[in-house]
């Protein structure tokens, strides 16, 4: 049986009258890269903060490495690297000073000076003051800080935010290496290719509730295509009413379809009505998820 690295049981957080998360049940196994998805305010950051004991749950519990986040916070944080979504650094320090301080405070876990390799890999000039860094370079500082102790668990909140595409690739490689090393990654992102590239499973949280969790390959297999068909005169209602095709909306000149199967039949039907143009749209992972699960009606767990 594989070891559970992260587990939450009916995790609920309220800030006064405001909802943080509600009855979140989640588990992430050793060596897994888990993508955590959801719109802004859905509860992704709240969940991560509860895992690290920054915020205390109103009810339910969260554990990492089998230890309760609330009661064993210090012990478990020795083995966790964290990149917050709202990264704030001590601006008056040089990056080098910051890493030295951070290494000393968190314990190097046998990875003394590893931050130098990481900084070199990300092309970060550690002799410069953090206040002089661009947003992307500050993000690199945060990434190095999260990875520098070679932690057993990495919790990354939007890790590639503000990075140029080349550096994004490097960060994704680093995540893959962590996974290949048998360590675990809990990864929050809005970028589908990133999640597809590194994650084994994804979970989507919406309005504080975990709508579903699913293996990435299953999601891809269930992926929908959304297309807008432009006509000179709108065809009759119901002509696309067949297996695997759903008409989402229509305007004066166009019909929007979601197509899971029977694409040739849908196109052949459209051709009969003198179709003028087709616009296709890749659905975001979140949309795929919500469609796949009937707009979050209950959801299921893989």
């Amino acid at each position, binding site marked *: 049986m594989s070891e559970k690295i992260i587990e939450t049981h009916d995790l*609920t957080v*309220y*800030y*006064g*009258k405001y*909802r943080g998360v*509600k009855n979140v049940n989640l588990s992430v196994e050793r060596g897994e890269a888990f993508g955590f998805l959801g719109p802004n305010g859905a509860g992704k950051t709240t969940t991560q*903060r509860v895992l*690290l*004991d*920054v*915020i*205390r749950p*109103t*009810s339910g519990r969260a554990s990492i490495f089998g230890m309760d986040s609330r009661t064993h916070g*210090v*012990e478990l*944080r*020795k083995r*966790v690297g*964290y990149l*917050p979504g*709202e*990264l*704030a*650094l*001590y601006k*008056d320090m040089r990056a080098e000073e910051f890493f030295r*301080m*951070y290494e*000393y*405070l*968190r*314990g190097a876990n046998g990875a003394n000076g590893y931050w130098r390799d990481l900084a070199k890999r990300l092309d970060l000039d550690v002799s410069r003051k953090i206040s002089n860094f661009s947003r992307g370079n500050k993000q690199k500082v945060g990434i190095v*800080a999260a990875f520098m102790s070679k932690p057993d668990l990495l919790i990354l909140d939007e890790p590639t935010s503000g990075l140029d595409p080349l550096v994004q690739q490097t960060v994704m490689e680093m995540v893959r290496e962590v996974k290949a090393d048998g360590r675990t990654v809990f990864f929050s992102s809005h970028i589908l290719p990133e999640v597809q590239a590194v994650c084994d499973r994804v979970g989507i949280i919406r309005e504080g509730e975990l709508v579903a969790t699913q293996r990435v390959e299953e999601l891809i297999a269930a992926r929908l295509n959304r297309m807008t068909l432009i006509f000179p005169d709108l065809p009759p209602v119901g002509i696309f009413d067949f297996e695997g095709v759903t008409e989402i909306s229509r305007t004066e000149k166009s019909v929007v379809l979601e197509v899971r199967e029977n694409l040739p039949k849908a196109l052949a039907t459209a051709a009969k009505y003198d179709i003028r143009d087709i616009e296709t749209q890749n659905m975001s992972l979140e949309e795929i998820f919500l469609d796949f699960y009937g707009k979050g009606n209950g959801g299921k767990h893989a």
Partner: protein
Amino acid sequence: MLRLFWQELKFRRNAILGWSLGLCFFPLVYIGIYPSVASEMAGLADLEIYKALGMSLGTFQDWVGSILIVFMPLVASIYAVINGTGTLAGEEEDGRLEMIVTLPLPRWQIVTAKAVALMISAVIMFLVVATVSVFVFQSIESQIETDMAAMDLFSAVMSAYPLVFAVGMIGMFLAAFAPSRRVAGTIAAVILTVSYFGNNLAGSTPVLEPFEPFFLFTYLEGTGKAVMEGQQAGNLLTLTAIGLVSFALAVFFFQRRNLTVGVWPWQRAKVESK
């Protein structure tokens, strides 16, 4: 924790330098000019307005007491309020605290390192001001009539430190308790202002007398007598106790605080009814 403490102290380098220089304004200017205004000061000794401001001006010792045991600590207390609330609530609001609390450090160590750094930074400021005061005193000693020795002046300045300790710790407690730095800073500023004016007015306003024990400045005597003989031990102990209790409360509430959320402690655990 030691490393965190050094780091915290390092963060305060500029503040220590700036505030020390600023506070030295009091001995350099107000003590420095005394020989030229001494005769005029004697005539103003009994004015109520000066009493209301906590000033007694009859002798050089009284003058020193008013300036270095009342005004200088009052201004130093502003530093304690700014830094006491900023080091927890300020860093929480700008996000830096999240980087620290997610390290494998117990929260009580974080508060303690910050509190010690704050208090040591204030000690350094007081030492600088006390030392500068002594130099200024020695340069004017021959022009004034006083029984005061340089060491009396040094001790008098340092004896005001417990007030700043108490204010700084109250600031930290409020930062750990209140939802935001703005709220914590406002409450701390009100406490400081009310303590100062309340204590000064209590002597001439009977209605305020019952509240005197609640004014922090009650426990700091800014008179020539206090300069020569030192502060009463009971008063110093009271201020120290207020500081220590506030520190304990800061640790207690910071241990339980939902960081990054910005709510009062009682707003934490309201579960929506099902």
